[in-house]
């Protein structure tokens, strides 16, 4: 029972981190209609920003998280204004290549500053929580609570506020949104800022139980892509459900199948599902 509970907890932790990253990715896809390959690099920069704020400036964990979110949000907005916005009329191939260029640049830049070695963010909450005979590290519970809290706030923002619904409107129909007077520039800046902040928060939450290194974003971003393909590109509930599916598949797969191949499970799942359903699991949200 306890072992099973551990796997559930692991699955929830992984799933909520993946879901946060996938959410940002899917939001940007809704606006840009390109897969932002640089999103994983934003996630990585977020982890380094938090690491720097905590390690070198001695900031509090939550302050560092907010700081990282602001830094990465600014970076994401900058990438939109300087690169993606200017390429909006170019063929999609160009956006993808530009995103790859940005990814390479950020990774090499971080590596030039902090080196290729692994870093660790000291766990701010090293306690173990005990409930009956179940044990759980506090950090994992914090990840789950914070991630779901954030998703809930995001959901409220997108559905209950005027600014939030402009994002949805824009994703649904660009021309229509412009017709009713929605400022496309404002919406895309906002979307990029949110997606960057989500990536930074996900990275800061995950960092205390993980390692920080320049290519740390690769696996996460690829899994996030798997998630949004499965969940439907541009679909927000799809990103959350997909994140949890992959999280659980990985934690249970690592335990019952093989730890060595746990990272392949997500991709194997993708191959399997796309072989039978090329349009993804929830094609309604998808735009082919």
């Amino acid at each position, binding site marked *: 029972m306890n072992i099973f509970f551990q796997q559930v907890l692991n699955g929830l932790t992984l799933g909520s981190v993946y879901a946060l990253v996938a959410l940002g990715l899917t939001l940007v896809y809704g606006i840009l*209609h*390109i*897969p932002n*390959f640089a999103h994983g690099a934003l996630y990585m920069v977020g982890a380094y920003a938090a690491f720097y704020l905590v390690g070198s400036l001695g900031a509090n964990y939550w302050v560092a998280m907010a700081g990282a979110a602001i830094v990465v949000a600014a970076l994401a907005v900058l990438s939109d204004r300087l*690169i993606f916005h*200017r*390429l909006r009329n*170019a063929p*999609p*191939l*160009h956006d*993808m*290549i*530009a995103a*790859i*260029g*940005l*990814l*390479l*640049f*950020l*990774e*090499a*830049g971080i*590596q*030039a500053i902090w080196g*290729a070695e692994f870093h660790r963010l000291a766990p701010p909450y090293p306690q173990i929580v005990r409930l009956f005979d179940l044990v759980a590290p506090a950090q994992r519970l914090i990840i789950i609570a914070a991630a779901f809290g954030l998703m809930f706030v995001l959901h409220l923002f997108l559905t209950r506020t005027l600014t939030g619904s402009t994002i949805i409107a824009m994703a649904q129909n660009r021309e229509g949104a412009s017709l009713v007077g929605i400022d496309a520039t404002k919406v895309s800046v906002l979307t990029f800022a949110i997606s960057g902040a989500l990536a930074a928060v996900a990275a800061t939450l995950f960092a205390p139980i993980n390692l920080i290194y320049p290519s740390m974003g*690769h*696996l996460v971003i*690829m899994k996030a*892509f*798997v998630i949004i*393909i499965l969940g439907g*590109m541009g679909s927000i509930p799809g990103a959350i459900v997909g994140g949890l599916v992959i999280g659980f598949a990985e934690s249970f797969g690592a335990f019952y199948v093989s730890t*060595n*191949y746990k*990272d*392949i499970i997500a*991709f*194997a799942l*993708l*191959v399997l599902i*796309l*072989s039978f359903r*090329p349009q993804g699991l929830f094609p309604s949200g998808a735009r*082919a």
Partner: protein
Amino acid sequence: MTSKTLQKPLLAILLVLAIVFPMVAANDYYIYVMSLAYIMAIAAVGLNLILGYTGQLNLAHAGFMAIGAYTVGILTVDYGVPYWIAFVVAGIVSAVIGFFAGLLSLRLKGHFFSIFTLCVGFMIYLVIEKSDALTHGTVGIIDIPAPTGIGPIRFDNTWSQYYLVLFFLVVSLWLMSRIVHSLLGRAFVAIRNGEDLAETLGINLMRTKVLAFVLSTFYAGMAGALYAGFVRFIGPAMALESHTFDMIAFILVGGIGTLFGPLLGAILLTWLTQSLQFLQDFRMIVFGPLLILLVMFFPQGLIGYWRERQVRRAAASMQDRRLQRSVIGSQQEVSTNA
């Protein structure tokens, strides 16, 4: 037509330059670097077929190059198979795996295809890294034998290996030029320009795309097999997507969808990184923004730019001639009227 008649002597000059290169190169290291650039160019020429001609951004290309290299590595080191047999098998293995990967991934279009192949590439990397028994895992395969001699020719020094690689480069470019100038090549371009239109014209989309994919992975496999025999050490990192990105940079700099673009880009960028030796690990600080600037301001690449200028000039001269003719015609008209 002028460009075609101009091309032949130009190609002959380039070939002579390539043949003379080892004799004028200052030391063996330069020859080594050039050979490496040729090998990367062969892989990039293959990628250009699916990316530049068929318009599908395949991000698993480095993975297929690694499959070719590992096929040679495993067969020669662990099973004592002669190099050239392993070399042929490497091409076949890459193409067969490419066939199945293509069959699966080409059901997806545009972005989905790119993302999917990114995952395929990463799966290849993970499988290579984790399968200790087969691939030696993270350690990689060392002491791969150099290509065995053919008849009296030996491939035991940098010079002879340079010519071997050059030979394969020329063959692969020649083959590629036959492919892209054939009806099949036109079908590839038609798909790039518009899948719906291509389908309406009676092109079997899936079959044609899979064929392009298989051909490109075959090139990757051959390049990988050459790489294994030339560098003689391979590790799982060569399957990483960053190597695919390198090749994309080659193609973009040289000219996407042009025959010689990948080669030109591979040579230029390889020498650029060599001359910025201190940048080895950080080459992406230069390459990353370079990629972005290229797609923003110079998406056609060097050869594409040159060709565009030629076309424009040809169009201008044609217009001149037409103008002259019409002027002459009206003069004649005037004279007959008078």
